């Protein structure tokens, strides 16, 4: 199960919304901001670039029940906020995490357990060789949040 999405989806009916992201991430959240502004709903923004992580942490911690959280950022920053929000008790139903920037996925080799990064064309093809043991792997959609990696299955049996 992947809890990271490619784009935000508006979640109506919440008391308050938090839009959190780096520069490109907040741009991605603009359509949501537009809806919230038009509907005159309560929301606030958190700039990940301008604010230190303890401040982000504090702002997320002081939110009340009924808050919906959008986080959009490049992968590493996103993972950091996701981990922080999960620790603070945000459930998957109360938040959306959107990845922006260059698409990159980590893949766990089912044979040797080494995790490597794949991006661009390799993700689209879904087939790559494990750099550690050379096994031809097929990128699956089975995701481990502990390892922040997708399972790579044996692509072909000779």
């Amino acid at each position: 199960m992947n809890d990271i999405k490619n784009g935000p989806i508006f979640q109506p009916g919440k008391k308050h919304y938090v839009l959190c992201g780096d520069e490109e991430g907040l741009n991605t959240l603009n359509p949501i901001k537009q809806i919230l502004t038009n509907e005159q709903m309560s929301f606030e923004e958190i700039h990940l670039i301008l604010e230190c992580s303890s401040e982000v942490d504090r702002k997320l911690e002081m939110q009340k029940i009924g808050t919906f959280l959008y986080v959009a950022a490049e992968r590493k920053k996103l993972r950091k906020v996701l981990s922080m929000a999960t620790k603070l008790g945000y459930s998957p139903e109360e938040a959306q995490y959107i990845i922006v920037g260059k698409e990159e996925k980590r893949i766990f080799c089912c044979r040797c357990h080494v995790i490597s990064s794949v991006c661009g064309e390799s993700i689209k093809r879904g087939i790559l060789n494990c750099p550690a043991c050379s096994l031809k792997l097929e990128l699956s959609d089975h995701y481990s949040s502990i390892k922040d990696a997708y399972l790579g299955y044996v692509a072909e049996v000779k």
Partner: protein
Amino acid sequence: MKLTEEMKRFPYPFKGDTYRYTNNSTLLTPPSSIDITEGYLKEIQLKRALLTEHHSRSFQSFPYTNKAQWEVLELVMTDLSTYFPKSFSFKKEGQNHVFINHLLQEECEFKMWDETTLPFEPLDFIGRHVQEDLILMLQRDGDLYLDAGQLCFPANWSLAFNHGMSFKNIHFPIPGFKEEGLDERILQFLLRLEAGNPWGRKNWSLMAGNRMDTSLETFDVWGKDRKKVTVDNAGEFVHLRVEVQKLFRLPRTNAILFTIHTHLLPLEELIEIPEWKRQFYQILVELPSHIAEYKGISLYKDKVLAYIEKKEDGVL
């Protein structure tokens, strides 16, 4: 017809003439976490070799599982000495505990809850004395997580990858499991498990070959055997693989112990029992393609059916 001891004890898994994913758990009688079969010595030897040569593939644990691991050790040792008193002893002598495995002629003296008195982590230690794989799921925030496990005979999955995952995430690849709401129903069932009332179920698949250690890590080695099945060799080469799975709530830590005992039976023996042959054939004919695909049967299902038909007609 003379049935072998192996067949008499084989946990035949089917009830009707069709098969679908369900929560087919029933209350366990007797409530023993462990069973000892005639393959004991051979399987323990294999388990220990795997644990020595491929430890991270066969054992995973988070440090905070230590208390629950001790609970598993105590439960399993108690069950072994209760249900198999000739083969195992478990005595308390003051602070010290003595566990004796008479089958292996091994004796271990240790202090409960003192990890320095055992050669391995408690789950890793007791798992080396039983044929079962032992999975430990800890409960928090209304969910269950696979936080520790000793797994030597997996049916094509990776303990190292699944370590730390929630119940639903682990079962994410099973087709239809989420869509039919089965993942939520089984999770709710597991969350309601009570200490003292263990449950059991059987799961099955077919296997080309007779390997016990069908880990995902070695799929490139054994997966190709699926292409080697023929109508002529299916009887001895293809095996019905049955997992007897048991679920125990641990009263102190509230964790769940999940034991998996894997059994293999060659098709040529399975079809010796006419009712088994008829029912198994019907189930295979009717099996939906997504289930056959997930269980890894698709490549050779037709050959197995043809083998049974030919046997029926007396051709083979």
